C-alpha cells in the first residue's frame, strides 16, 4: 500500500551523505582529509537537525520508497534513536578531527601516509553503517547494516598494516560473520513464523512460541558476539589494541554499542511479549562476569591500549545488565536510562582514552605502562584528558559515568538484585585500581625523559573535548533523560501510534 509519510529527510540523508562522501573521496584522491572533515561536519549537522526535529515535533517515521511496512522498509527516529544518533555524531566528529591529525600526509609512507587515503572512505562507510543501524525499523535491513558495520570496522583495523593487526582483524571478522549469520537465521525464523519484517508489525504479532524463542536466541547470540560480551569477547582486545588510535576510539566507543542498541530495541520493543525473566538473566549474568573479568585483565595489562581495550570489555558488561534489570518493569526508566547514559558517557570517555593512548604512542614510540614516567610533564593536556575520562569510567560524580552507574545501581536495589548491585560496586573499585595504575606511573616528576616527538595540537584537544563532554553529560542529566523518553519508546503501543 502506498502511504505518504513525510518523515524528516535527514533520516535518509544521514546515510546517503556519508556514502556519497566516501565515493567522492575515492574519486578525487587528493586533499582527502579536507573532504573528510567537510563531510563529517555535514553529517554531524544533519544529525543535529534530526535531533532538534525530534525534540520539537516528536518521533519521526519515514516509509522509504513511499511503501509503508510491511511492504517497504521504515526508518523510525524517537528519543532513543535520536540520542544514539547524536552520540554517534559527536564522537565521530571528534574522531574525524583526531584522524585528520593522526593520518597526516607527512608521515612516512610505510606507516600511515598512504593509508590516509584509505582511512577516510572506510571511515565514512562506518559512519553510514552506524546511522543506518540506529534508524532502521526493519530486521532484515539491520542485518545488511550490521554487515556493512562489521566489514568496515575490520577494514579499518587492518590499516596498521602490521601482522598483529591483520591477525586480530581475521579473528574479528570471523566472529563478526558467525554473529551475522546467526542473526540472519533468526530473521529467517521470524519471517517464517510472522510473515513480516517490520518492527511495528512484529511487535503486534509475536507471542511466546517456539519460533519466537528460536529467533530471539539466534539474534541475541549474534548481537552479543558483535558486542564482545563475555565469553565471546576474546576478539576485542587484540583488535582494539592493534588498530590505529582513531579507529580504536571509534570501535570501542560506537561499534560495540551499535549491536547492543539493536538488542535493546529487539528485546524491549519487538520481543517484549516473548522475553522472560529467566531469559533476561543470561545476558545479565554474562555481563556481570564481563565486568569482573575485563577489569581484572585490565589490571594486568602491559600496554596502555591493551588496558583501555580490556576496560571496554568490562564496561560493555555493565550495559548487558540492563536486560534483567529492565525486564522486570520495562516502562520504568531507571535501568534503561542508566544503560543509555552509560553508552554515551562511556563512548566519550573511552574515545578520549584511546586518543590519549594514541598520543602517547605517537609521541614516545611505545605505550608500555611501566615506562610512562614523566608523561604528564610533556603532555599535560592529554594526561588531563585521560584523568577526566578516567573519572567517568570509574563513575565518580559529577561525570556521566556516575549518573549511569547510579541509575543502574538504583534499579538493581529496587529489584532487589543484590548480585548485580555488588558487581556494579566491585566494578567501580576495580576500575579505580586500573585507572590509578596509569596515573601512578605517569604523574611522577623525572629529570631524564625519553625521546619525545611533537604531536599535532588537534589530537590532544579532541581528546580533551571528548572527555569534558563525558563530564558535561553528568551535569545535564535531567534534560538528556527527558529527551530520551520522546515517543515513550519502550512501550510497544507507542510504536503503533507514533508518527504522522
Amino acid at each position: 500500500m502506498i502511504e505518504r509519510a513525510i518523515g524528516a529527510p535527514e533520516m535518509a540523508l544521514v546515510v546517503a551523505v556519508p556514502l556519497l562522501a566516501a565515493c567522492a573521496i575515492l574519486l578525487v584522491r587528493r586533499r582527502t582529509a579536507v573532504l573528510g572533515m567537510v563531510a563529517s561536519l555535514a553529517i554531524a549537522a544533519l544529525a543535529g537537525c534530526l535531533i532538534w526535529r525530534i525534540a520539537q515535533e516528536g518521533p519521526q517515521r519515514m516509509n522509504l520508497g513511499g511503501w509503508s511496512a510491511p511492504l517497504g522498509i521504515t526508518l523510525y527516529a524517537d528519543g532513543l534513536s535520536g540520542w544514539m544518533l547524536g552520540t554517534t555524531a559527536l564522537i565521530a566528529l571528534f574522531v574525524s578531527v583526531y584522524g585528520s591529525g593522526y593520518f597526516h600526509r607527512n608521515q612516512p609512507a610505510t606507516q600511515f601516509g598512504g593509508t590516509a587515503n584509505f582511512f577516510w572512505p572506510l571511515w565514512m562507510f562506518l559512519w553510514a553503517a552506524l546511522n543506518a543501524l540506529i534508524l532502521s525499523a526493519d530486521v532484515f535491513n539491520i542485518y545488511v547494516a550490521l554487515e556493512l558495520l562489521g566489514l568496515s570496522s575490520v577494514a579499518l583495523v587492518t590499516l596498521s598494516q602490521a601482522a598483529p593487526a591483520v591477525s586480530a582483524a581475521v579473528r574479528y571478522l570471523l566472529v563478526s560473520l558467525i554473529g551475522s549469520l546467526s542473526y540472519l537465521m533468526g530473521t529467517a525464523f521470524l519471517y517464517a513464523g510472522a510473515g513480516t519484517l517490520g518492527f511495528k508489525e512484529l511487535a503486534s504479532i509475536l507471542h511466546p512460541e517456539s519460533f519466537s524463542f528460536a529467533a530471539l536466541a539466534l539474534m541475541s547470540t549474534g548481537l552479543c558476539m558483535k558486542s564482545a560480551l563475555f565469553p565471546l569477547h576474546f576478539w576485542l582486545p587484540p583488535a582494539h589494541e592493534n588498530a590505529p588510535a582513531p579507529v580504536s576510539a571509534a570501535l570501542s566507543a560506537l561499534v560495540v554499542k551499535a549491536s547492543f542498541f539493536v538488542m535493546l530495541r529487539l528485546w524491549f520493543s519487538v520481543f517484549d511479549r516473548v522475553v522472560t525473566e529467566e531469559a533476561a538473566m543470561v545476558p545479565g549474568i554474562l555481563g556481570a562476569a564481563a565486568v569482573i573479568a575485563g577489569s581484572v585483565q585490565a589490571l594486568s595489562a602491559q600496554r596502555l591500549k591493551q588496558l583501555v581495550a580490556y576496560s571496554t570489555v568490562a564496561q560493555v558488561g555493565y550495559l548487558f545488565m540492563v536486560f534483567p534489570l529492565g525486564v522486570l518493569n520495562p516502562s520504568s526508566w531507571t535501568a534503561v536510562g542508566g544503560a543509555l547514559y552509560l553508552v554515551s558517557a562511556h563512548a566519550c570517555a573511552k574515545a578520549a582514552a584511546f586518543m590519549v593512548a594514541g598520543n602517547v604512542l605517537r609521541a614516545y614510540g611505545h605505550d608500555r605502562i611501566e615506562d610512562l614516567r614523566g608523561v604528564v610533564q610533556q603532555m599535560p593536556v592529554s594526561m588531563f584528558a585521560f584523568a577526566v575520562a578516567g573519572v567517568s569510567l570509574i563513575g565518580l560524580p559529577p561525570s556521566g559515568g556516575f549518573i549511569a552507574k547510579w541509575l543502574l545501581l538504583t534499579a538493581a536495589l529496587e529489584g532487589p538484585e543484590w548480585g548485580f548491585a555488588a558487581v556494579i560496586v566491585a566494578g567501580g573499585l576495580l576500575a579505580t585500581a586500573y585507572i590509578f595504575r596509569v596515573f601512578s606511573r605517569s604523574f611522577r616528576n623525572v629529570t631524564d625523559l625519553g625521546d619525545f616527538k611533537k604531536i599535532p595540537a588537534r589530537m590532544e584537544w579532541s581528546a580533551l573535548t571528548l572527555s569534558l563532554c563525558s563530564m558535561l553529560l553528568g551535569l545535564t542529566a535531567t534534560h538528556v533523560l527527558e529527551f530520551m523518553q520522546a515517543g515513550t519508546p519502550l512501550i510497544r503501543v507507542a510504536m503503533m501510534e507514533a508518527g504522522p
Partner: protein
Amino acid sequence: MLTEIKPKRAPSLPESPAAGFPFLRPAAAVSALLLFGVLWEAFRVLPTPRASLPNLVRETLPLSGVANPVTAVILNFRSYDTLIEIAVLLLTVIGARAATASAGARLSRSVPEPFLAAFFRLLGPLIIVIAGYLLWIGKHAPGGAFQAGSLLGSAAILGMFCTGWAPPAESGCQAAVLCLGTILFCAVGMGTYLAEPNFLHYPIPWAGTLILVIETGCTLSIAAALFVLFTICRRT
C-alpha cells in the same frame, strides 16, 4: 606450453585460535547437535503461514514498474537494502585494497596459448551480450543486476586468463566504475525528493526507467568489484 614463474614453496595456512583448545571440538559438536535439534523442532511447529506479504506484493506489482516480483522487491519496495548492499560490495573492494596496500605486486604474468586468446575473442562478446540480456530480462523473469554483473565479472576474469592482460593497480577509471552503482543509487534516491518528499520514492510512470538505470550502474559496479577482488586475491 604454458610458461609460468615457478612459485616458491608457500608457507602453511595460518592456524586459528580454535586449534589450541582440544576440548573445543566435542563441546562444539554437542552444541551444534543441540542447535540443530532446537531449530528443527521450531521449524516443525511453525504456525501456518499468513500469506499477507506475498499477496501484498502481487497486488502492488503493477505500480512498481516491473513485472518480476523479486525485482520489484529488490529494486523498488526494499531498495534501501539493495543500496546498502551495493555499498558493502564497494567497501569490500576498498578494504581489500587497504589491507594489501603495502604488499608488493607478485602477480605472475602467464603467457597463455594463442588458442585461448582466439577462443576468448569469440566467447567474450557472447558473454557480454548474454549479460546484457540478463540485465534486461530482469523486468519480466529471473534476472537483473546481480546475475548480469556476476556474468560480466567472470567474463573479465576469463579474459584476464585467456589473453594474459593484467589490469593496472589503480586508476581513476576503475574507481569511477566501482563507485558508479553507489553514486547512481544515492543520486536517484536524493533526486526523487524533487518529485515526492521521500527518499527512493520513484514516481510511478518513471519507476521502470529509474530501476533500469540503477540496475545498469549496479551491473557495471558489481562486475568491476568482483574482477578487482579476484585480482587482489591473486596477488596475495
